[in-house]
Structures are given as C-alpha cells and as structure tokens.
C-alpha cells in the first residue's frame, strides 16, 4: 500500500458528535491553512438536531482553488465518532489516513489494508491532563488539531496566533488552549514520521482574501445598504443572517453616547408577519428586510404578490435548503428558484439576485435595497446553506464611501410643495413602468394616496374597470423590462476561438463548474461559460443563449428550475438546454457535472454516428 502523497490538494474530514464544540476546533485547521496562503473550503455537515447525533466537518484544501465539494471520498478522516466510524472508515481513499482515538482498541471490522491508521490516545491524554469532564471533552478536539499540525505540517505559529486572536478579551483561555495544541503536536512528532505524505505548504494564494460565511456577508451588505428594520422568524439555514445583522448593528449602528439603536430587529410570530413587517416598514420609507428558507417563502407568498401588485419595496434573503416541504433542513439545494420567481397567485414575477461568493453576497445585499427602492418591488436574494452557513474564501468586502443610496422615485416635501399637477401614484411618466412614490406624513395636503392589493387606477383609486386594470398590468410588464436593465449582468467567459457549446450555472455551483470545465478541457472539450447573477435575464443572457448550439444548465435541484426560466423568459428552445443536475443535499461536485456533460456528449456522438 502506497501512502498518498500530495501537497496543498486534499480533503480532510472530521467526524464528531453534534453539540460537543468540535466545530470551532476544526475551524482552526481551515483557518491556519488559509493564513498559510492556501485556499480552503470548510463545510459543516450537521444534522437537524441539537446534540448527540453524528456531524461532520470537511475541509477541502486546494492551492489550485478548486473549492467545490470534491466527492464523498476523503484523504484524511479524523474519526472521532464511534457511531459513524464504520461508515467513515469506508470513505477514506486508498492510501489515505484514518486518525482515531486509540485509547480503546480499533475494532477489527474497521481494519482496511489500503489505508494508514494513526492512533492518538486522546481520551487517555485528556483523562490525565484535565480534571473537569467538560474540559476533557473540549480539549480533546484541540489536541487532535495540534497533532494534525505536526502530521500535515501546519505552521504552528499561525495556529497559536489564531488562538490568541480567537480569545481576544478572554486572555486566560489562551494558555490552556495552546497547551492542548502542544500536547497533540508533541505526541504526533514523537510517535509518527511527521509530516505525512499529505501536507500543507505555505504559499500566497489567499493574499488579501478573507474567509467569511455568506450569511454574515449578506448581513453586512444590509447594514451598509441602510436597512434599519428587520422582521424575521428563525429557520435554518437563514437564522444567522439576522444574528449577524444584530451583532454588527449593535456595534456599528448604536449611538455611542445614548446607547440608542439606529435600527430595529423584531422576531415575528411567523414568516407571514415577518414579511408583513418588511412591507409596512418599506411603505413607510425605511429599508427593511427579512431572511428565511423554503417553508418561509411558501408562507410569504401572499405578501410577495402584494408587493408586486401594490408596488412596495421589500428585500428577502432566501437561504435555500433541501426541499420539498420540511425536506432536509440542514442540507443545501437551489430549489426555490421557481417558487421565488413566480411566488403568489395571479400574474406575478419577482426579481432575483444570485450571489456565488461572500463578496457578492455583500454587494448584492446592498444593491438589493437600491434595486428594491428603484423598482418598487420585492427583491429576493437567493443564497443557499452551502454559501450561507459555511466559511468561504472571498475577495475582501469593499465599500465606496462616495456611494449614495438610490432611493428611486420618491417625492420629498419640497417636490410636493412645488408640484402643480395632480399627483398620480401609478402614472408612468417616464415610460419605464415605474410611478412615483410618496411616503406617509411627507406633506400636509399633497401626495397622500391609498395603497391596496386590489386593482387600482393611475391615481391609486379602487377600480374594477377592465381598461384601468389592463393598463396597470401592462405597466408592470414595462417595469419588468426596466428591471432587466438594472439587475447585475451575467459573468461570461468566452473561449478565444468561440465555443459552440456553453455551460450556464449560478450561485454555489460556481467552483464545481470551474473545476469540471478544467477537467473537460483536459479531455479536449471546451465550453464558453455564463454565470447567471440575476432574474430577469438581460440582453447579455439572451445573446449568450442565441450564440450557442448546446447549453448545459447546471443546477442543484431536480426539476431544472432555472432552465425553465430560461425557456420561458428568453424564448429558448428547450432542445438546446441540457439539464445538469445534482440534488442530493450535498453541494454538486465537479465529477457529477463532468459525467453528465460527458454522457450527453457521448449520446450526441452516437446519434451522429
């Protein structure tokens, strides 16, 4: 058996028990590699439960920057959970390593000839070192990280600095943690031939980058974008959007002298109320948002229709998880595309923004508030569990202090005072389908109007007149056309010689697609590529569609939902849109993409033959 040899390209997975604090220890590994300059993509794979069930933490280390989920196999398995140990052992690649607690002897059913076993007497060490049973549990995780540092050649100084950073303010915790690290480090150094074949080597691929979860980036975007009212209801995996907003706002949006808050966050009784609060606040002129996941979107659907028809801004962060129904709440998916794009009865459609990285989460979040004010309608930012709850490598977040909020067409007191003609809330003066708003309380005698979800004429009066109604519906279509000019463009990469086939992808399929394209390229297949970043689709999307014979549409759902939107909204022949799908609840992998594309190429070839 040849032990695996690889530098800066491997997957390590930690198997732990839920609720034992392993997450923060495992994160140390990821952050150390990151600080050493190697891109990492840590993923937390946790059950829908609070304590006692198996949980995994997986880090792909990739100097090449392949940060999508690789496959189910791992190179190093840190198997700390007896419950899942048998299954965990099976996932190690030939030549890979199994790191385990050898305080108790390894069961013979766990023995494989083709992998390397590294036993650490963790329980024993903890028993010896610590009195408090709680500490024993906690430090066990730290000890194996220390050992891994030796085994994989992590920079121990970096590791120690991380500890110091982490416990800033709680200095007395630094020493014992470093002590535990050293315990593991020294044990490994003494007992094994360190480092192993799989190792980390410092480089500069993360210079200037940051490591942050998408939900925090969304929250920061909202804070910078000027959101001041939040109504929300807890649901995995969206909860941390609001938690982060609260955390940052408490620090950055609170009056230092009075302690008064320049924002309001209210936990609603459910998602209907959360969205109602957002609409009420937006109607009143504040920037407001809520965050939810699939079940919440379903419940908000009546209100989303109101937003569309009464033309009230709103920002919704949908952190998608596996559906349908309750589905798999702690697994990822991109399966709310249709339910969000067409949420609610009647002829409705909604603007979607689709980030792939934390930086884009931040940008799109802030932009969503501008867009929502400009378009006077709900904007839904479509993230998912994979992006939202995992730390992702990202360009640093940027804010231009000269940037001004685009509040869209809102009349001020002065505007109204000067106005001589009759105010018509839904008059389309500019031909862009967008009327002019007034905010309640602006002027004592001008500009008041009635907002309603029932049909209304250009002056916001109730009507059952067919012509008025049709005019309103047509204007909303014009607004939709305007939206196309305002939403972010797709990211398009064309081959120099211009490929006849292309791939279309979006959101968290980004990394896996990049990697799949490289793999395919190596096999002589080259593709143009377009990453969608918004719905409705603008001209660039249409041109890309028109310019290719075959387009592989990569998505993380079963029903090829984005493909449907491309067909419908761009009048594209389905025959040229080939679905490439992964919906297992795990992020789609480059292999899955490559295989499906290859299968299709083979079929085409056969047909041609």
């Amino acid at each position, binding site marked *: 058996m040849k032990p695996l040899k690889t530098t800066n390209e491997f997957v390590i997975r930690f198997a732990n028990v839920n609720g034992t604090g392993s997450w923060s220890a495992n994160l140390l590994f990821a952050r150390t590699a990151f600080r050493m300059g190697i891109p990492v993509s840590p993923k937390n794979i946790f059950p829908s439960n609070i304590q006692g069930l198996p949980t995994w933490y997986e880090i792909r280390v990739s100097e090449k920057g392949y940060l999508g989920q690789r496959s189910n196999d791992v190179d190093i398995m840190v198997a700390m959970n007896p419950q899942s140990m048998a299954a965990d052992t099976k996932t190690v690649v030939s030549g890979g390593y199994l790191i385990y607690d050898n305080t108790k002897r390894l069961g013979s059913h766990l023995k494989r000839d083709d992998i390397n076993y590294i036993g650490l007497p963790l329980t024993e060490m903890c028993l010896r070192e610590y009195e408090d049973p709680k500490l024993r549990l906690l430090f066990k995780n730290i000890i194996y990280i220390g050992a891994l540092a030796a085994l994989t050649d992590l920079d121990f100084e970096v590791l120690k600095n991380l500890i110091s950073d982490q416990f800033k303010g709680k200095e007395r915790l630094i020493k014992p943690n470093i002590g535990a690290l050293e315990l593991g480090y020294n044990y490994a150094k003494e007992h094994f031939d360190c480092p192993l074949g799989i190792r980390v080597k410092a480089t500069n691929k993360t210079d200037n980058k940051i490591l942050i979860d998408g939900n925090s980036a969304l929250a920061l975007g909202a*804070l910078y974008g000027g959101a001041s009212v939040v109504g929300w209801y807890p649901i995995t995996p969206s909860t941390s959007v609001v938690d982060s907003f609260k955390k940052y706002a408490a620090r950055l949006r609170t009056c230092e002298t009075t302690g008064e808050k320049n924002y309001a966050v209210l936990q609603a009784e459910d998602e209907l109320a959360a969205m*109602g609060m957002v609409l009420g606040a937006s109607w009143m002129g504040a920037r407001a948002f809520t965050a939810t996941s699939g079940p919440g979107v379903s419940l908000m659907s*009546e209100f989303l229709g109101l937003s569309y028809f009464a033309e009230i801004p709103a920002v919704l962060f949908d952190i998608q998880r596996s559906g349908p129904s309750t589905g798999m709440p702690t697994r990822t998916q991109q399966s709310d595309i249709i339910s969000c794009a067409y949420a609610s009865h009647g002829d409705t459609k909604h603007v979607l923004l689709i980030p792939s990285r934390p930086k884009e989460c931040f940008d799109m979040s802030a932009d969503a508030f501008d867009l929502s004010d400009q378009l006077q309608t709900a904007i839904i930012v479509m993230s998912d569990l994979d992006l939202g709850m995992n730390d992702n490598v990202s360009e*640093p977040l940027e804010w231009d202090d000269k940037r001004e909020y685009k509040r869209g067409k809102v009349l001020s007191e002065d505007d109204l005072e000067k106005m001589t003609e009759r105010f018509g809330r839904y008059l389309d003066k500019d031909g862009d389908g967008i009327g002019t708003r007034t905010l309640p309380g602006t002027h004592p005698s001008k500009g008041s109007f009635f907002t309603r979800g*029932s049909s209304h004429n250009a002056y916001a009066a109730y009507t059952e007149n067919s012509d008025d109604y049709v005019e309103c519906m047509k204007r909303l279509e014009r607004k939709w056309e305007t939206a196309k000019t305002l939403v972010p463009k797709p990211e398009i990469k064309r081959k120099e010689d211009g490929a006849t086939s292309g791939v279309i992808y979006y959101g968290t399929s980004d990394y896996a697609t990049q990697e799949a394209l490289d793999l395919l390229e190596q096999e002589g297949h080259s593709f143009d590529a377009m990453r969608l970043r918004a719905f409705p689709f603008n001209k660039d999307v249409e041109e890309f569609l028109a310019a290719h014979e075959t387009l592989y549409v990569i998505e993380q759902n079963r029903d090829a939902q984005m493909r449907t939107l491309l067909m419908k909204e761009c009048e594209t022949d389905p025959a040229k849109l080939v679905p490439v799908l992964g919906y297992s609840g795990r992020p789609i992998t480059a292999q899955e993409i490559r295989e499906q594309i290859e299968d299709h190429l083979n079929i085409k070839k056969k047909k041609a033959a």
Partner: protein
Amino acid sequence: MSYINPQFRHPCSNTNEIGCTRKDYEGVISTLCAGCGHDSITAAVVQACFELSIKPHTVAKISGIGCSSKTPAYFLSQSHGFNSVHGRMPSIATGANLANRDMIYLGISGDGDTASIGIGQFVHIARRNLNMLYMVENNGCYGLTKGQDSATADVGSAAKGGIPNEFAPVDLVSMALDLGASFVARGFSGDKEQLVPLIKAGLSHKGFAFLDIISPCVTFNNTPGSTKSYAHMREHMEMTGKVDFVPEEAEIKVDYKPGEMTDITLHDGAHIRLNKLGDDYDPQNRRGALAAEEKAKEKGEILTGLLFVDPESHDLHDVLGTTTKHPLRNLDEKTLCPGAKALEAINETSR
C-alpha cells in the same frame, strides 16, 4: 415647517385649533350598505380627529380586507392609507411603526379579519404593546363574503341564515387584557357620545390601544336572534362609566365630587376622565377588568367603555431601545452606513 397655523378656536366655530374643518377629516363616499354600523364609526373617527386637531397627514391608516377594512378610504383623505391583505394589518402596522415612531397609527379591522385569519397577528401585536389604536368593527359576521358567522359570534346568536352559532366566541377584549394590552375599551357604533371620547383617548394613548366596537351588519346580522344587532345592543349594553377625554391644554371646567370621577393622565398630558356610574370601576386594574368582563358575559351583558388603561407602559420602541432622535426611516446615509474603514476592520478579523 408647519402648513396649518394653529388658530384660536371659537366655541361654535367650524374649524378646529389647527384651522381644519370637519371636511378635512373626511374621505371618499362610502360604498357600504345604508345603515351599516361601520359608517357610524367612520363618522366618529372624523369627529374624534377633528376635535383632537390632529394633522391628518400625521396619521397612517392601515386595514386588512372586509367591509370594515374598506372604511379607511372614507375618512382622512389627506392621510396615507394601506388596505393590505386579509388578517395581516397588524404586521403591516408593526413594520410601519418600527420605521417611523412619530406618526399616529390607526388600524381598522373586522371581526373576521382579526378574530379568524388574523388572530395570530392580533395576539402578538397586543403583547408587543405597539403604539397604535387598533379598532375592530365587530359585527359577528363576515359582511363582505355575505354573512357567514365569524369567531366573535356569541353562542346561540343567529344571523340571517337562522342557524345559531354553537362555538365559544373569541372575546377580543378579554384576550387583549390577558395579553398585556395597555389600553382596552369597547364601544358601540350606535353610541357616538361614548365612542368619540374612546377613540380620542385611544389615539392619545402611548402603547397598544385596543377598541372593540360592536357595529351591526344590517344586511346579514341585524336579526332578532343576533346578539350583534342594534336592538340587542341597546338592550344589553352596560357601561363601566361615562368617559370624557380632556386634552392637555383644556381647563378643567366641571367640578366633580370626590369619588365621582377617576382621572387618568396620559403620557402627553391629556386626561381621561371616567365618571362613575353605580359600581366603583377601577380602569387601572387589569385583573379587575378581566373579572368585570367575565361577569358581564355571564350575565349576558355587553360591557362598554374604558375597561383598562396603563398610561405608563413601555411600548415596543422602548423595549427595543430604538433611537428617539429621528424616526428610523429619516436616518441619513451617514448614520446608516458604517463606512469603508469599519469594513476594512471586519475584513481584517476574517483573515
């Protein structure tokens, strides 16, 4: 900037202190059935706002769906109005209030809109003590969808269909009391003399003011068998006391003998005066109010008037600690946006 100059008000003048006429408080013409209780409530709102000299544009009118929820169109045409979706007025009001604590919030709902589809939002707005006046125009039925029983229909009460209701009614008043609402009252659309001061007090109260108004539906539920009919109300109405609302500036003109009157000072200096009838009623005792309501129900009476008020309660903004300097929606970019430097610091901690 003030567009309407406060004027001296002559006792019999047609304008109020800010120079507005009653007409300035009206809206478009009602399309409700002739004789509908809701129209009387509309008139009472107009009168109350006129008498309080409220600047119409400082009021936000919010409603759900139903005949009752249409009424905001019929008063205060200078105010912004929001006729939202069925049963969800409370959440819209909450959001609006969070965004701008400086407006006056008037929510209008029906018994179907509040006690059926909207009961969840009602429960939660009450316990959060949102600063608003929440009025339910309670006719015990679904007017707009043609007369089905609503959840406030009393046991044994029969609407036009003739079938007596057998489900326990939702008593919004006792529910509001139980949930910590800081102002709870009941009126009757047919008794404007009592209703107008209740509306005035409710608008002036800081915190959640709940006003249940029995408002007969002449088309579907004004039958002899109905407990929400004009006739039944006139026969079974009980009062906690005669309510007077006295604005801050007004001198106290009438003298009461001690014990005849309870005087409650609201946060803005206005007074509510309860002139006692018969029994001693203490409107600042929540448990007493609950007991009185339960007792009245047992006797088949409908208790009206001011049932409870806590003039010192903490409203939602107090609890959240929202800034008192400006309404949130008025905050400028400088206040809202932490700026590039702070972001750079955050980047730094994420490395």
